[in-house]
Every structure is written in structure tokens, then in C-alpha cells.
């Protein structure tokens, strides 16, 4: 028998642990680099006028991101209106009909849907809405984002409802409460925190999406309140300005990035708080 010396094995053990720790900390440095740059370059740009003025034409300094802020909100509202009702109902279906053969395919479709590259979704919205309508619009952008938000809503609803113990439903039914009412007035409220968390995370996901908007919402230099017309959004603005040759626009892009990151981070933090505070324990 040949034996590796104990000393060598212990050395290998220590080296391995060291490597794991070093690599892990190296992996997290990009986060700090990104945050550092965004904060350093972006924070100086942010002031009240930045938030409420429209972008200035190319090359001129100053200007703001107001139309992008409004546009982002419009898109998120449309996306939510599309994905929430359908998503919650589908989530209820999956949790109530857990074992149905069909539910398996439904879930599989959801996984595939979630994995579709966002730009492909953009093309679909283009084909389904932009082409028949003849123009780019906030509506088509909202539809694209809604399709991306849908799997998140369905899955978080299903997960939440799965955790609610059956006896609760049975108690309600045993009291003579009809099934639809049991689901909508007893079960859903019990899972409210999880569903709200899902909504917040879904919005956080689409808040930063650009690709599906490139040829749906398209972007615009004006304030757009008409959902049948193109509309600007924060990530679109960042993309267009960052890739432009004008340093004034680069500065605006850093500011917009800052706002975007703060928004997404806040959503994530709020989602965590919602889970902690509101979650009904069984």
C-alpha cells in the first residue's frame, strides 16, 4: 500500500479552502466595481431637474430623464395588468390541480417560457402588435414585458399556495362556503404575502429589460402618455445614451443607471420585508 503523507493531505485541505475563499471573494468584486462607478458618476447628476426635465437634443448638456421615468411606469402598469390576472389564476390552477397530467405540461411550458431570450419575446410582440397596428407603441412594449413577467407570477403564486395546508381549504368548504369564494376569499388572502412578493420580484425583473423594447416601445425623446405611440423607458435611455458618442449623454446615462439600480434594489429589499412581516405562519 502506498500512502499519501498526512502532511500533504492536510496541506491540500488548507490550500483548497483558501482557494475557495479567494475565488469567492474575487467573484464578488465586480459588484463593488459596478456600484462604485455608478454611484461616483451618477450621483452628481441627480437633482430635481434631472428627474423632471425632458432629454435635450443631441450634444446639448443638461436635460433629464422624465419621459423615461414616466414611460417605465406606463410599461410596468400595462405589463402588470396583463400578467397579474392570468398569472394568479394559472398559479391557482397549478396548485389546485397539482397532479393532473395536464398540469405537468403547463409547468413545462412555463419553464420554457421563462427561458426564452428576451429579444425573441420582443420579436413576438412586434409580429403580434406592432405590425398590425402599423407603429411602435407602449402597448406592444407592455405586452412583451407582460409575457416575461407571467412565469414569475405564476410560479410564485403556485409556490405560495402550495404551502397553505389543505385543512384550511377544507374547513372553509365544510362551512358551506362555495369553492370559488373559498379560493378567492380564504386561500388567496392567506397567501397574499407570497403573491405580493412575486409581483415585486416580477416588476424588478422587467424594470431593467431593454431588448424586448427595442422594436416595440422603441423609445422617444418626448413625453409620451399615449399607449398607442412609442414611449421611452429607463433602460432604453441608458442603452441609447451609453452607446452614443456624446459625453453629455454618457453622464445622463450614469444618472439613469443610478436611478434604475436604486429602484430595483429597493424592490428586492421591500420584497424581503414583505415576506418577513406579512407571511402567515401555519
Amino acid at each position, binding site marked *: *500500500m*502506498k*500512502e*499519501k503523507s*498526512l502532511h500533504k*493531505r*492536510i496541506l491540500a485541505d488548507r490550500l483548497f479552502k483558501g482557494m475557495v475563499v479567494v475565488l469567492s471573494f474575487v467573484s464578488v468584486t465586480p459588484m463593488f466595481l459596478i456600484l462604485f462607478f455608478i454611484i461616483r458618476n451618477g450621483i452628481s447628476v441627480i437633482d430635481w431637474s434631472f428627474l423632471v426635465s425632458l432629454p435635450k437634443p443631441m450634444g446639448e448638456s443638461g436635460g433629464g430623464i422624465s419621459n423615461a421615468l414616466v414611460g417605465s411606469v406606463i410599461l410596468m402598469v400595462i405589463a402588470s395588468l396583463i400578467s397579474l390576472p392570468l398569472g394568479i389564476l394559472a398559479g391557482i390552477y397549478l396548485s389546485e390541480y397539482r397532479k393532473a397530467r395536464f398540469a405537468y405540461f403547463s409547468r413545462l411550458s412555463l419553464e420554457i417560457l421563462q427561458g426564452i431570450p428576451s429579444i425573441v419575446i420582443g420579436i413576438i410582440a412586434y409580429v403580434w402588435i406592432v405590425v398590425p397596428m402599423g407603429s411602435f407603441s407602449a402597448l406592444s412594449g407592455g405586452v412583451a414585458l407582460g409575457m416575461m413577467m407571467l412565469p414569475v407570477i405564476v410560479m410564485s403564486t403556485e409556490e405560495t399556495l402550495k404551502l397553505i395546508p389543505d385543512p384550511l381549504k377544507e374547513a372553509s368548504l365544510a362551512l358551506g362556503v362555495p369553492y370559488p369564494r373559498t379560493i378567492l376569499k380564504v386561500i388567496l388572502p392567506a397567501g397574499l404575502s407570497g403573491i405580493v412578493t412575486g409581483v415585486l420580484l416580477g416588476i424588478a425583473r422587467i424594470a431593467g429589460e431593454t431588448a424586448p423594447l427595442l422594436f416595440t416601445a422603441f423609445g422617444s425623446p418626448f413625453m409620451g402618455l399615449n399607449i398607442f405611440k412609442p414611449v421611452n423607458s429607463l433602460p432604453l435611455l441608458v442603452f441609447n445614451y451609453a452607446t452614443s458618442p456624446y459625453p453629455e449623454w454618457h453622464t445622463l446615462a450614469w444618472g439613469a443607471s443610478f436611478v434604475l439600480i436604486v429602484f430595483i434594489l429597493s424592490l428586492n429589499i421591500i420584497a424581503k420585508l414583505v415576506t418577513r412581516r406579512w407571511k402567515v405562519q401555519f
Partner: protein
Amino acid sequence: MESTVLKIEDFSAGFDDHQVVHHINLAFEKNRITAIMGPSGCGKTTLIRCINRMHELVPNATYSGKILLDNENIYDTDPIIVRRKIGMVFQRPNPFPTMSIYDNVVAGYNLNGVRVSKGDKDRIVEESLQKGALWDEVKDFLHRKGTFLSGGQQQRLCIARALAMGPEILLLDEPTSALDPKATAHIEELVVELKNTVTIIQVTHNIPQAARISDFTAFIYLGDLVEFGTTEKLFTVPKDKRTEEYLTGKFG
């Protein structure tokens, strides 16, 4: 004159916020079976896990005192060496699911990076499985994964795996509590056989089992060693009132 192979001196152990085992003094005879019994939560598992230095793997673990194996304090030796001299079989059978039966038996060597010739490996596998009373049942399936075996067979595989390392002492932590009566009987027979090769220390809360197979018994209650002696004496004429109460089922 019998010889003492393991001695526990003034040993205490526990966790940051509370002590589980207090000032234990205990000696174990070579090639004998010593049962450590007591009600749940009395510290017997913690104690046994200190003997092969597994206790300290848990965060917040504390311990003090000496445990002498052949007169050397195991706390002065590298834990890896200690664990190779003192084998352990756990409450629930845990063969490695990604390895075949053959590889499970020699897992101790593979994991430690010891290179063994095929011939030696075959010999070790056969000897260990024979000692574990499993050879006849699996000799035609050595290269299948062990998960198809019954609970009792899996436990015997784990015993074979521990024995393959040639330990001086075998620690058994309630090895039959997860098994059915027939498998339990099988393992009890096996354990009695094994004492000719190894010294056995068995933790159990199964009083009849301790009575059946052990030569010596230690009774631990709330972390203290209450009484220790030959099984015959302890069970028939216990010296301490608590021992008597435990044996008659007043608690535990």
C-alpha cells in the same frame, strides 16, 4: 488480567451555551463490548462522538479533559489518524449512494488517498464483508450500488466499511434503532462475534439489548456517569437508585 484499551479521564463536553457531559471517568476493556446507556438527551451520543473526535466538527462545540487510546491522548494526535483507529457506525445506515458495494467497503482507503493494489483491495473487501456477515449475500453483486440492499444489509455494509480500516475500537451509535427485529437480531449476533477482533462501545437506549450483548455497562444520566460495572452486576444489583429506576422503566 484484562487490559484497558481506552480511558476517559475527567472529560466534559458540550456547546457554547451549555455543557452536555460532565467530568466523566471511564475505562474500556480490550475485546469486550461496553454498552453506554441512558435516557434520550443524557449525553451518550455526544460522549461517543468525542471518542472519535467528531463532536468538534460542530460549530460551538467545547470539550475538556483527556481521552487516552493505548495511553496516548487522542487530543494530542491528529484527528484524522484518530478516526482511522476508531471506527463508527451510525444510527441510520448511510452507505455512499454514488459508490458500488465494493467501493463502499474500501471507501476509507479511497477517501484517504491510500493506493491499494487490486489484489489487496479484493482481499480487504472479502474479509470485511465476511466479518460483517454480508459476504454471502452480496458477493455476486459487488459492483452494483448499495442502495438496493435492505436496511439491515445496508447497516452491515456500513459495519464492513468501518472494519475495513482495521480499527482498534468500533463505536456503534444505536445501530439497530432504525431496523426491524429480524435485522436487529442479525446485527446483535454479528456484534458479539466481532468483539474478538475489535473493542466495541455501543450507545443504546434499548435496555434489553444492552443486557443481551454487552459485557460491561455504563449508565449515564443528565451528563453524569451514574454507575459502571459488569452488565450482570449492574442489571441485577444496581448500586445507584437512579440506575434501578431507569432499568425498571421509571423514566427514559
